[in-house]
């Protein structure tokens, strides 16, 4: 059986459909926003990594340049000393001091073949102090990190001096020691607090004494990051440190992302490490993304509210229209019902209405729910004669006059036209109580009308008796009485149809 679409079904479908549609819009917006944020973060990470790598690489090159520059300066110093007529240790100290100042060489010193070190102020046996002196001969440059007793770390640059002979003594090497703190000063960032850097050994030991953010701080880098990255990744970074391969590490600490890049410093065992905590770029773009997301959410919320308001208005309007339609339908029904129960000529109830009333009264009689009921049967005298002689218009007027007469006297009763010239009046309650008085009055008026040649109506009546089973029983008695009255009135000169058997 095909299900009929009702108004309720239609509204329900509209509401549910609207909600589904709005949910889909919201979810789609949120999903799109999340996708956008993720894509942005990935892009930012790549940019940050590139940025960090560039910074680390630039600083590593700065150190390389520093190293090369010091080697060049050392060579100049050695060449100068080699050409000077130095005859004593005192003169050598003076020369070393002058060159140190002139060429900005930190702790510039010479070493003879007995591993005795000559500086501006001291001469000392340095075999145990300088690692590059562990070999008897020296044939190449030597770069090392010196852990000085007392925490200070220095970069030691040593170069062989095969041609250096002073006062007949052969010298095997020259060297400078640069304090790592000075290198740190050279590399210092301007945006400290957001970007950090540090120099690290192959095993992750901090050489520069600089803090690499709050998490790694001054600790061993590899040991520290081991806590926040997968072991496989950690092993890879250890290998990179050990083999001097650049790389980057990203991790999250206390909800904050940190990215660090490391690049090897050429010629040394060092790793230059640069770290960004909560990258400015990342924060900025994240802020933009979040702002966009907020805007999208607001738009969705606005559309949702607007849709709900619109839906409410539509539903309200629909309800109003429905109520109006329902009222009109009720009115039409009432009109149709009135039209069906009303005599169009006289305006009183018709036979159909009488039948309905009779059925209701019969029901009450059966239920013994009624005790006052009077039925008056009225018949217009001479209607056919008028129709035949004066025309139907005069006949209609006669009918209307008769109806008016009846209605005028039985104002508390229900008047029905049940035939062309026949009316019935149903009287209950007050109409019943005044029935006889009104009958008397109307009959007198009718009798007067005979003399004035106006409308004459024959009236019979009866009331409900305990023996009556239905209204028709009462009607029959009233009808018989009406016929008797018609005869009386004829005798009194009332008009009647010409071929009437009574005539």
């Amino acid at each position: 059986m095909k299900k009929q679409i009702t108004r309720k079904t239609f509204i329900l479908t509209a509401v549910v459909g609207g909600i589904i549609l709005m949910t889909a819009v919201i979810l789609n917006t949120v999903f799109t926003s999340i996708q956008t944020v993720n894509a942005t973060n990935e892009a930012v990470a790549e940019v940050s990594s590139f940025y960090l790598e560039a910074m680390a690489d630039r600083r590593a090159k700065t150190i390389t340049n520093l190293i090369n520059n010091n080697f060049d300066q050392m060579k100049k110093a050695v060449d100068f000393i080699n050409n000077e007529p130095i005859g004593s240790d005192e003169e050598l100290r003076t020369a070393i001091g002058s060159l140190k100042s002139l060429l900005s060489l930190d702790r510039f010193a010479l070493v003879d073949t007995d591993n005795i070190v000559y500086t501006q102020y001291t001469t000392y046996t340095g075999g145990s102090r300088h690692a590059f002196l562990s070999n008897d001969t020296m044939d190449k440059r030597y770069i090392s990190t010196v852990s000085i007793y007392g925490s200070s770390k220095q970069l030691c640059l040593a170069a062989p001096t095969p041609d250096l002979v002073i006062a007949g003594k052969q010298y095997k090497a020259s060297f400078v020691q640069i304090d790592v703190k000075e290198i740190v000063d050279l590399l210092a960032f301007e945006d400290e607090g957001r970007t950090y850097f540090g120099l690290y050994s192959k095993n992750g030991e901090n050489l520069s004494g600089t803090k690499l953010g709050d998490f790694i701080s001054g600790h061993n880098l590899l040991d520290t990051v081991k806590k926040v990255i997968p072991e496989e990744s950690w092993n890879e970074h250890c290998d990179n440190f050990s083999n001097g391969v650049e790389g980057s590490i990203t991790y999250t600490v206390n909800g904050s992302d940190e990215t660090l890049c490391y690049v090897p410093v050429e010629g040394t065992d060092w790793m230059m490490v640069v770290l960004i905590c909560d990258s400015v770029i990342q924060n900025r773009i994240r802020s933009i993304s979040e702002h966009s997301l907020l805007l999208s959410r607001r738009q969705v919320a606005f559309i949702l509210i607007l849709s709900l308001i619109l839906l409410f208005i539509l539903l309200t309007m629909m309800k109003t229209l429905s109520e109006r339609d329902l009222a009109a339908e009720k009115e039409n029904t009432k009109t149709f019902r009135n039209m069906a129960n009303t005599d169009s000529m006289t305006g009183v109830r018709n036979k159909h209405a009488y039948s309905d009333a009779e059925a209701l009264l019969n029901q009450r009689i059966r239920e013994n729910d009624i005790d006052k009921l009077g039925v008056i049967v009225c018949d217009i005298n001479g209607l056919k004669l008028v129709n035949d002689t004066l025309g139907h218009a005069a006949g209609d007027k006669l009918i209307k006059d008769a109806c008016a007469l009846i209605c005028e006297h039985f104002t508390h009763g229900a008047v029905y036209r049940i035939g062309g010239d026949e009316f019935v009046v149903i009287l209950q309650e007050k109409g019943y109580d005044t029935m006889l008085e009104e009958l008397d009055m109307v009959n007198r008026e009718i009798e007067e009308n005979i003399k004035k040649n106006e409308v004459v109506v024959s009236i019979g009546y009866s009331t409900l008796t305990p023996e009556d089973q239905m209204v028709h029983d009462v009607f029959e008695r009233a009808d018989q009485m009406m016929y008797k009255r018609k005869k009386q009135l004829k005798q009194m000169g009332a008009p009647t149809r010409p071929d009437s058997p009574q005539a």
Partner: protein
Amino acid sequence: MRYYHKKAGMIPLVLIAAVVLSSCSTASSGAAASSGTGSSEVTVTDGSTGTSEEDPRSEDAVNSAVNFDHELDQYEPKKDHYNFYFTYKIVHPWWDAVALGMEDAQRKFLDKGITITYEYMAPEAASAEDQTKRLLEVRDRDFDVIGVDVADEEVISPVLDEMVDSGIKVMTFSSSDAAEGCKRIAYVGNTHNYQDGADLTEALCEKLGYKGKVAILVGSKGAPCHEDRARGAKDTIAKYSDMTIVATEYDMDSVDMAYDLTKKILADTPDLDGIICCNMSNPVGAARAVTETGSDTVIVGMDHDQEALHYLKDGIIYCLGVQDCYSIGFDTLQNAVKIADGNKPGELFQEKTDEITTVIYQEDAAIMLELLYGDN
């Protein structure tokens, strides 16, 4: 010997190391300034061992075991240039640490407009003969003061007396003073080597429950500091009837030799319970050998070698006696200036200063590595 025992963690001290160092060194410097000697107060414990109750001062003590924060005292040098000669027993990192203290003092004098030049020389192998030769070579050179870390007090003391008699200003420094009665003007360094040896041995004995077989590794034969520590060790062992000394060997300040000697001792005495190391090379060589052989022999030793500190950190070495080499070097140069100016021991400086030694344990190793070598 300052002898503190700490079983609690020392890690938090890293954070306050600077503050502690500053406060401790200030106190130390203040004392030095007031006395004019540059010496440090010595705290000697009651000889109880590493299992004793924690000393609340211990964390500070480890940080101040080596004082890197020195200032010159109020003494005003009479000249603007001094030239010194120092000779010590052997080319060895221990004396490199002393040299750093001297260089610190030299820089601080330079900041005051006083130039100090000096030679700081030693042979590759400890030798009283070599030291004698060096002293004879420099006696006629124009040095304001000659400083000597006595290689062998019996051999060197007469040489020093002779030099003093000839008008040369002579002082002794770092690990070993000259013999009692030597005419040298003053000594800056460790004056409690015997007690250092005794205290380390006492710690070992307690660890071993006062019973077992032990070996003693010594540095250079005749070196007063090494011999004194060995004597202190032997006398302590002698107090306990259930402890025996199975070997006493000299590594001549060579780590490699210490390693070889330890392996030999372990081979000869597989059930060796402990090794007492009287110098800086001993514990390194011993720890290498013990690690290699997998022995559970307990090692106690001297000094601050970086490798030894790592062995301490790893639990291979039980404890180390750390001397304040930096302060020894600083005070040596500062007193040398006063001696060069003709001052005698008294108000300006002590005839014999007494630098500190601090015994540290496994839990102290990390902070000591950080303190001495920035090793994190």
